[in-house]
């Protein structure tokens, strides 16, 4: 674990990874308590549940799982006193290629997650929660389950938590190797023991009909950890670290062709692409130059290093004016990345240097999506496979002149026509690679 064991870069601010980066920090409850553990939960139980939800809203916390939905707003869809059972399901499926942050929390600081989860349960009148962990993290499942028992023994979970009369049970549920289970409605089907086909929307939110058709919150592991820090620092202080629409810190995972890959935690919007790649990650490998970055997990639209985006900003007189924004000057927060046509997603950045063949890169991703489509919707099931077969054939020297057009056509006919957002996730790479690197696809098409 390279980047976390070295001292933070001046641009970094470790909150989520504060404990984990301490030398000798262990995942047991005594170590957690010695580092201020469960103080936020103690505070939470003295607050009104609505106060907690309002604090999370005021903190501008966005979900860290990929969709970036405002967390407090999601919680406010749960009606505290509707007389129905409520559930919270933690998404620890972490399987979006390029993303590797939750694994550290689950393995090394499980109580941080349990504390955040207990606070969210208290705020939403929830008495049963599940932590869904991908089965490729077998040690994490044991560590988290052990942490749950420790928290029970100390009165932070179970019956009558901290003498408040509030009850909460948490169990661990392991996945079985399917990427689609990260999609929240697939995850719920998986947890119900069914074939994990994503559910048809509407309802758009599990808060309406979730686990066992009851109001349910699904949050990412990291998202719930942030809740602890919102209570600790206060919503205003927490929000102030980030940008107006994107509060707090964000953990960013960098992989690919940089000198120092790894995980970095920064206030939202604190760094540009240039600073992340050249300062924090030490730049490209010797003799190499930057070609492209996939900024938010494998499905985020690719950014080309020499692109200059046209964005609208507020001018001195308040009117909106056009501005040129070179790719390396893009600030890495949710709204800036959205304004340049891609997304922060799960903040898994994959860096590609000038040695990379973009047809090869796209083919790798196409094979991933073809393998992971659940098969429910014809456009996704067939289209993801066609795209994968076509790029495989192009790489093998069998390209045909009509391939780029056909690839685009297939992708355009998946996105927006499927049950779940996997349809977009598998189309965006093809659409953006073709749009940004047409010369390479034309060449491979022969």
């Amino acid at each position, binding site marked *: *674990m*390279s*980047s976390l064991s070295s001292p933070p870069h001046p641009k970094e601010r470790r909150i989520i990874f504060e404990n984990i980066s301490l030398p000798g920090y262990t995942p047991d409850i005594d170590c957690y308590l010695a580092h201020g553990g469960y103080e936020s939960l103690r505070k939470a139980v003295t607050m009104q549940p609505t106060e907690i939800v309002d604090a999370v809203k005021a903190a501008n916390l966005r979900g860290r799982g990929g969709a970036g939905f405002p967390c407090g707003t999601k919680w406010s869809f749960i009606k505290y006193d509707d007389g129905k*059972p409520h559930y919270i399901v933690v998404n620890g499926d*972490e*399987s*979006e*290629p*390029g*993303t*590797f942050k*939750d*694994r550290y929390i689950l393995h090394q600081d499980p109580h941080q997650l349990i504390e955040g989860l207990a606070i969210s349960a208290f705020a939403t009148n929830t008495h*049963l929660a599940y932590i869904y962990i*991908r*089965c*490729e*993290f*077998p*040690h994490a499942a044991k560590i988290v389950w052990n942490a749950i028992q420790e928290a029970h023994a100390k009165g932070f979970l179970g019956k009558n938590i901290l003498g408040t009369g509030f009850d909460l049970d948490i*169990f661990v*549920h*392991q*996945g*079985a*190797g*399917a*990427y689609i289970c990260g999609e929240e409605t697939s995850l719920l089907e*998986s*947890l*119900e*023991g*069914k*074939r*994990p086909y994503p559910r048809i929307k509407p309802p758009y939110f599990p808060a309406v009909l979730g686990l*066992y058709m009851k109001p349910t919150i699904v949050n990412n592991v990291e998202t719930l950890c942030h809740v602890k820090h919102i209570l600790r620092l206060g919503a205003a202080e927490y929000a102030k670290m980030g940008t107006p629409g994107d509060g707090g810190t964000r953990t960013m*995972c*960098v*992989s*690919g*062709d940089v000198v120092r*890959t*790894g*995980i970095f935690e920064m206030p939202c919007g604190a760094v540009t692409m240039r600073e992340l790649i050249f300062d924090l990650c030490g730049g490209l490998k010797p003799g190499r130059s930057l070609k492209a970055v996939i900024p938010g997990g*494998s499905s985020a639209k690719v950014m080309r290093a020499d692109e200059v985006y046209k964005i609208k900003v507020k001018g001195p007189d308040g009117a909106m004016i056009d501005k040129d924004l070179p790719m390396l000057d893009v600030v890495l927060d949710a709204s800036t990345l959205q304004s340049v046509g891609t997304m922060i997603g799960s903040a*898994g950045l*994959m860096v*590609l240097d000038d040695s*990379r063949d973009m047809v090869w*890169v796209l083919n*790798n*991703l196409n*094979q*991933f999506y073809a*393998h*992971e489509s*659940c098969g429910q919707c014809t456009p996704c099931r067939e289209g993801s496979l066609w795209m994968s077969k076509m790029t495989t054939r192009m790489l093998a020297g069998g390209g045909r002149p009509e391939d780029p057009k056909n690839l685009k056509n297939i992708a355009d006919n998946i996105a927006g026509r499927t049950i779940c957002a996997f349809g977009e996730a598998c189309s965006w790479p093809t659409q953006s690679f073709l749009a940004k690197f047409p010369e390479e696809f034309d060449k491979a098409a022969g």
Partner: protein
Amino acid sequence: MSEPTKRQADDIPPAFETEADELVSHYPVSKRSASLPLLHLWQREFGFVDDSGVEWIAAKLDLTPINILELVTFYPWFRRAAAGKVVIRVCRTLACAMAGSHEVKERFCESVGLDPHAEHHGFGTPPPTTADGKFSVEFVECLASCGSAPVALIDDDLVENIQPADVAAIVAKLK
């Protein structure tokens, strides 16, 4: 796939049932939720899930066998026949592929004596396995450790930053 003559369910150890009941108790709202945990338990105990396993789990949860079989054939993790004693899962996805995981996987296959280019289609079939039943090697998708690519999951343990030249020594330790 030849039908195993022995039914796994004929050999259930006493502690198994207790552990299964404990897992079922984690799902107070719906027993059906315990189907994945019971499949994991079964595969850990017996190495794979045969028809008797599908039937036993279904009966335990008041389901029909197809409710369990459709999970075994959906999830890449489960298999209907034995895999190797040691299962080596090399990450195939982008960051690992860029760092050389295809070559790493080939080295693993060669070191244990498997065809590096054998195809594996999933749907409940076991990964390619050596004749002596010691090793299976397969590609899996992103293991969420892209920053230390290329990686492999060897049984329960993640091995990071694997260089092709390291593979023979890793395999020697497993033998």
